[in-house]
């Protein structure tokens, strides 16, 4: 168990910069997710941390100690791969035992044939078998120990891969999209199990995923990466409510945040296609407003915007309504309680107002910028 520090990590393949100076501190026992669209460099960052790839510049430290020169084998990290990467010729028990036999037994003791008869080998092998059995029981795969990976389902292979990672009690676990090959139901189930495992072991977890829902549900903190840069690192709540960048706002949350193109006039008032929005720009010119679907409410008059109902999606627990708003390129989504179902008809005109505290402004570069309420000024 240890802290993990990444300091100004850069990586280029040929002429392309895949990582452009990423710095990240991960606390002891923390569950940190690296999330971003595919190709953003998150897997490369994890592989550099693991020692499977070498950074072009920058330092990786674990527990305060730089480990840049160390091989993957010597970094005391365990990794779970997307494809599980189990040894096809070994049984489940042998697969889980590999990291222990490679570390605890000497080269001679590992030799096939004579190895088991060397002094000390027997008791070590028994210790390993006990550890393997304990791990298997914890993961509920004790009845599969004699099977080969080819005979297991995806979910079972996943557990074996986790078992192989956790037997040696590494200083941190690295997980590279471990759930993406599972079906939807199994994914939700394993999501909860992995989060529980983190709490039970108290170990540091670094979890790479492109699925924001996984990151939101499991993590203590999330680091959002795009195009080789960290856009924002924070708790799931902070990322959801106070995104620092318009790309973070759009990436986190499902259905996606509503982005309204606005303009700031000479007096600093923010207008949505000429109409007042009730907001005033703080320091910078505001070009976009972001409003989460649940921060929009139906009103009697046009306070923020109005549009015609295009589509009503009933999820049972929630109702998502899409509105065509003149001037806004994409339909605006709002979330309503299921009780609102009866009142809505496609084509109907709806007026919306917003929970003002939850509207976020973005400047021309896409960075979050302060918004002020406009009422005070409007009457002057």
């Amino acid at each position, binding site marked *: 168990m240890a802290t993990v520090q990444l300091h100004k990590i850069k990586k280029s393949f040929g002429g392309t910069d895949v990582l452009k100076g990423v710095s990240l501190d991960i606390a002891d026992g923390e569950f940190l997710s690296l999330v971003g669209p595919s190709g953003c460099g998150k897997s490369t960052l994890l592989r550099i941390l693991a020692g499977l790839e070498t950074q072009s510049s920058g330092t990786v430290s674990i527990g305060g100690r730089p480990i840049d020169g160390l091989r993957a*084998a010597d970094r005391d990290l365990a990794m779970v791969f997307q494809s599980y990467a189990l040894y096809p*010729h070994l049984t489940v028990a042998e697969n889980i035992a590999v990291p222990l036999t490679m570390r605890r037994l000497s080269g001679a003791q590992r030799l096939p044939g004579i190895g088991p008869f060397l002094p000390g080998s027997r008791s070590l092998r028994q210790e390993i078998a006990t550890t393997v059995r304990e791990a298997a029981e914890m993961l509920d795969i004790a009845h599969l120990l004699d099977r080969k990976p080819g005979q297991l389902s995806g979910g079972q292979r996943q557990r074996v891969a986790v078992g192989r990672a956790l037997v040696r009690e590494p200083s941190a676990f690295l997980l590279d999209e471990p759930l993406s090959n599972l079906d939807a139901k199994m994914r939700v189930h394993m999501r909860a199990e992995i989060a529980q495992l983190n709490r039970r072991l108290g170990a540091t977890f670094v979890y790479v995923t492109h699925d924001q829902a996984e990151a939101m549900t499991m993590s203590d903190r999330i680091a959002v990466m795009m195009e080789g840069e960290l856009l924002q690192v924070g708790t799931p709540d902070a990322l959801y409510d106070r995104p620092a960048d318009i790309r973070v706002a759009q990436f986190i949350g499902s259905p996606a945040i509503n982005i309204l193109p606005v303009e700031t006039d000479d007096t600093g008032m923010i207008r949505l296609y000429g109409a007042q929005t009730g907001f005033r720009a703080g320091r910078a010119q505001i070009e976009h407003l972001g409003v989460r679907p649940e921060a929009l409410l139906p009103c009697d008059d046009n306070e923020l915007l109005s549009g015609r109902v295009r589509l009503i999606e009933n999820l049972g627990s929630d109702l998502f309504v899409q509105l065509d708003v003149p001037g806004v390129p994409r339909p605006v989504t709002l979330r309503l309680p299921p009780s609102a179902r009866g009142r809505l008809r496609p084509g109907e005109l709806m007026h919306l107002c917003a929970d003002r505290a939850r509207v976020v402004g973005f400047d021309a570069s896409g960075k979050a910028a302060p918004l002020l309420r406009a009422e005070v000024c409007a009457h002057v």
Partner: protein
Amino acid sequence: MTHHRFSSRQTLAHLVLIFGAVIVLLPFYVMLTTSFKSSVGIASGTGGLFGAQELVLDQSCVNLGGSEQDCLTRPLIDNYHQAFTAAPLWRYLLNGVIVTASIFVLQTLIAVPAAYALAKLRFWGRDAAFGLVLFCLLIPVHAIALPLYLMLAKLGLTNSYAALILPWIVSAFGIFLMRQFFMTVPDDLIDAARMDGMGEFAIIWRVMLPTAIPALLAFAIFSVVAHWNDYFWPRIVLTGDRNLFTPPLGLREFKGDLDGDFYGPMMATATVIVTPLVVAFLLAQRRFIDGITLTGMK
């Protein structure tokens, strides 16, 4: 219901295949039937597959002072008896096993790590190195036989097991075949092994080799067949010591230049020599085809 209708295309294809099979099998048939017959039967070409099996006189038995009555024997028994007594065939078979097994083990020790490096490691000049391997596949053995012989002679290694084994321990074909197989092994598996604490050689022997067993078996058959049957190279480097003769050289024992050739015992020897290969191939047939089609990982 499927109707088996006459199809001229299918029939033609089968006729061509049957013709090919006859061409391949005919020499085996001749070898087998010759090994069963007396010299009279061979010369007259009579008696079908097994020959007439009329009693013949065992000349060596007579020479040892046996009576004609005791020395009458069947041609089949006589041929195989001579094959094992006129020449130390057991010794030759043992040499064959020693030589082919040593060649295969050494080839594996070299080809597997080389193939792993060419398939999975990134280093400067890797593609050029692989190009050289492909180039080596094109060089015929006979073209380099003379320089090889001269080098062995300079080192004083002719007439030794080393002369039979050393020139073959680097197999371009083995490196090529194993490399193609290793290309299909997922990179994640190797990375997982590195995370589990394995060094590169541990990965080769503990992960890559076990997953490549079908490919290795295919290579084993190619290698063993080629070197077990090799007549050319042993004939060049073994000039004196008959204790080092490999099985094919045993055939020379019955080439009696002046007295005419002893085809019966010679073909009996040939039958004994090919039998282990045929049996091994039949046993390994399924894995062998797996290995050539490179479908091991699924």
